[in-house]
C-alpha cells in the first residue's frame, strides 16, 4: 500500500526521575535503571505499526531527569510545549506536585508507578488515571485466592517503610473484607540494606525463625515488604513450615515473567528482543500507558486531552493487555480495572478475581475500593 497521509499526530510524554531505589534482595533480579520506559518504547512502535496504516503518527518524548532535578519546572516546560498526554513514573510528592499544577489541570496524566490507596481515595485527582493495581487490589487478589484455599489465618509481618505500611493496611482491610483473620502481627525493624550477604546466611538463618515464632498457629505469612528488606529471607526459614505470600513468595502483580496466557508470550518475546532483559511490572505499565493512549487515538481520530479523556471514561473504551478481557477505567477513581496475576517466584499460580467472588457489574471490581466505598471526590474545574 502507498504511504498514507498523516492526519493525526499524537505526542506522548514520559516524565520520570532517576530515583535511587532499594535494590532487589535476590541477586537473580538485576538492578535496573530503565524500568517502565522500556515498555513505553516497545508500545510506541506498536502504535505506529497500526498508525502508519491509517495516517496516525505517534511519538514518545522522554523526560528522565536526575533525582535532585526540579520536576515542577520540567513539568511546566512540558506543558508550555503544548503537551496533552503525559505518563508519570514518579514518587508521591513529585507526582502530586506535577498533577496539581494549574498547567496540568486539563491534561491526561497516567500514573504507572504508584500503588498508593490514598491516590485512589482522598488524594485522587480528576486529571490523574492509575494503571497499576492499588495496594487494596493486590491484597484483595491474594485474599481471594487464600480464602479459596481456606488458608485464612494470616501472620502479618510488615517492614517499616512507607510502602510497607501502606500494603500492611491494605492487607488488614482485606482480612476484614473477606473474613480472614490476622492472628499475629509483627514489624521487621531493620532498614533495607545491602543485598549482598556474602557469609551472612548464618545470621539470617537464626534471625528468621525468631521473627516467625508466634503463640498462635497460622496458615501463611503475609509479608508487607514492598521496600525489599527481608521478604525473600522468610522462605524456608520460618519457625513452622508455612508458605509466604504478599510482597514476596506468592505475589499479586500485573505482570510476571512466568506469564504466557492470552498472547502474553508474544509480549514477553517482543520486549526481550527490544530491551535484552525480562519485562518487569513497571515496564508492563509503561507499555500499557502508551497503548491506552494509542487505543484512544485510534478510535477517536484525535489526540487532544479533552477528547481522549472523555473516551477513556466512556463505555466504548477497552484496551487489550493480555488479561483475556478488555481493560477499562473505574469512573469513580480512574483506576484501571484488571485481572491480577497470582504468581510464585517461578510459575504462575492463579489469576484473580477467583471464581465465586461476585459483583453486580464487573467481577474485577471485587478487588480494591468499589464505588460505594470510594472517598474520591473529583474537583472538576
Amino acid at each position, binding site marked *: 500500500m502507498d504511504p498514507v497521509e498523516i492526519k493525526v499526530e499524537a505526542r506522548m510524554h514520559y516524565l520520570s526521575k532517576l530515583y535511587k531505589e532499594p535494590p532487589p534482595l535476590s541477586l537473580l533480579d538485576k538492578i535496573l535503571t530503565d524500568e517502565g520506559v522500556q515498555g513505553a518504547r516497545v508500545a510506541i512502535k506498536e502504535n505506529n*505499526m*497500526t498508525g502508519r496504516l*491509517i495516517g496516525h503518527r505517534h511519538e514518545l518524548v522522554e523526560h528522565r531527569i536526575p533525582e535532585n532535578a526540579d520536576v515542577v519546572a520540567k513539568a511546566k516546560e512540558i506543558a508550555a510545549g503544548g503537551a496533552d498526554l503525559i505518563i508519570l513514573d514518579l514518587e508521591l510528592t513529585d507526582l502530586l506536585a506535577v498533577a496539581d499544577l494549574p498547567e496540568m489541570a486539563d491534561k491526561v496524566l497516567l500514573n504507572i508507578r504508584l500503588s498508593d490507596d490514598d491516590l485512589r481515595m482522598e488524594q485522587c485527582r480528576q486529571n490523574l488515571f492509575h494503571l497499576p493495581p492499588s495496594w487494596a487490589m493486590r491484597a484483595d487478589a491474594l485474599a481471594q485466592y487464600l480464602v479459596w484455599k481456606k488458608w485464612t489465618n494470616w501472620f502479618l509481618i510488615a517492614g517499616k517503610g512507607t510502602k510497607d505500611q501502606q500494603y500492611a493496611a491494605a492487607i488488614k482491610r482485606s482480612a476484614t473484607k473477606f473474613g480472614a483473620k490476622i492472628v499475629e502481627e509483627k514489624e521487621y525493624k531493620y532498614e533495607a540494606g545491602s543485598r549482598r550477604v556474602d557469609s551472612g546466611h548464618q545470621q539470617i538463618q537464626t534471625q528468621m525463625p525468631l521473627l516467625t515464632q508466634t503463640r498462635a498457629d497460622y496458615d501463611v505469612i503475609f509479608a508487607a515488604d514492598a521496600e525489599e528488606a527481608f521478604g525473600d529471607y522468610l522462605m524456608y526459614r520460618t519457625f513452622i513450615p508455612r508458605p509466604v505470600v504478599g510482597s514476596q513468595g506468592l505475589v499479586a502483580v500485573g505482570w510476571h515473567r512466568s506469564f504466557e496466557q492470552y*498472547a502474553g508470550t*508474544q509480549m514477553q518475546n517482543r520486549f526481550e528482543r527490544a530491551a535484552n532483559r525480562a519485562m518487569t511490572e513497571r515496564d508492563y505499565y509503561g507499555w500499557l500507558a502508551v497503548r491506552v493512549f494509542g487505543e484512544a487515538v485510534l478510535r477517536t481520530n484525535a489526540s487532544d486531552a479533552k477528547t481522549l479523556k472523555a473516551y477513556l471514561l466512556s463505555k466504548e473504551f*477497552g*484496551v*487489550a493487555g493480555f488479561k483475556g*478481557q*478488555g481493560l477499562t477505567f473505574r469512573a469513580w477513581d480512574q483506576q484501571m480495572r484488571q485481572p491480577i496475576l497470582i504468581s510464585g517466584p517461578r510459575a504462575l499460580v492463579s489469576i484473580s478475581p477467583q471464581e465465586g467472588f461476585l459483583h453486580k457489574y464487573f467481577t474485577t471490581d471485587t478487588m480494591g475500593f468499589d464505588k460505594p466505598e470510594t472517598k474520591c471526590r473529583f474537583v472538576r474545574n
Partner: protein
Amino acid sequence: MLRTTLVCAALFPIFAPAEAATLFVSNEKDNTVTVIDGESLKVIKTIATGARPRGMILTPDNKKLIVCAGDDNRLDIIDTTTLEVERSLDSGPDPELLDIDSKGDRIYVANEDDGMVTVLQFADGKVLAEIPVGVEPEGMAVSPDDRITVATSEQTSMAHIIDNATLKVVANVLVDVRPRVAEFTKDGSVVWVSAEIGGTVSVIDAKSYKTVKKFGFEIPGVRPEVIQPMGIRFSNDGKLAFIALSTANRVAVVDTATYEVKDYILVGQRPWHLTMNEQGTKLYVVNGLTNDMTVVDVASLKPETSVPVGRLPWGVMVKP
C-alpha cells in the same frame, strides 16, 4: 519416540474405510495432533508434532494436513493416509494460523511474533513474499476465488486485505479490539471477522472492503466481558453461522440473513476453533480448558457427545 509410534500402530491398526471422515485436533500444550475416527469417535492415533501446534489446514485434495508449530518456527506436513509427519517447511517466526489457496499451490501464514504474513509455495517451501501487517497477526483467510487474503492482527485491531496477485496490502479495515478469526462466506461476497475482546463480529464486503455490519452477543446471566467470539464456521447452505464464544462456553448460532442470534449451544470450556463434516450435519468444537471436543448435531442444534483429546486443544479439521 520411535517406540511410541510403533506401539500405537500395533494397538490401532489403520483400516478405516475410505468413506469414513477423519478428524484432526491440534493440542497446543501436548505438542501433538489427535486423530479421531469420524464414525466411532475413537482416537486412532496421536501424532507428535513440533512445539506449540495451533493452526491447521488441509490441502484441497485432503491428502496433507499442514500444522503450524509456533515455537519451532515451522510447518509440519502430515500425510492424512499414513498419519505421519512427512516433512516440515520453514514458515518464518512463530506461525499461528494459515490458509491455502484453492489450487493448493500457496500457503499464507500469520507470523504472530513478527508482524508478518509469509507466503510460501507449498511444493517446495519457497518464500514468495513476507508482507508486513499489524502487531500479532493471527486470522488468515483466502477468498474462495483466490483473489484476496484477509489477515487479522490482534494488537492492531485490523483486518488487512492482501491482493494475491501483487502480494501487497490493498486495504486496512479497523475492527473491534483483538480480532482473531477471518472466515469468508461460501459465495465469497463478505468476510466475517471475530473480535475477542471487543466481543463483536464485523462483516466486511469483499469488494469495497467496507464494514457492512457489526454485531455483538447478549446472553442472560453471562457477563459481557466473558463473551469472546473466536472461531467461525458457516453451514453448508450458508444460512447459519456458528461462532465459538470462548470463555462464555457457548457456540452462537447466527442467521446470516438477519444477523440475529438464533441460539446459544452450551459446549465445554473455552471453545476455540470449530469445523463441520462434509455433509454439514455435525459441528465439531474444540474446548481449550476442558481438553475435549464437543460434537453438535446441526439439525437439532444440540450437543451430542464429548470426546477427550490432548491438553489445550486449539484447532480442528475434518478430512472427508
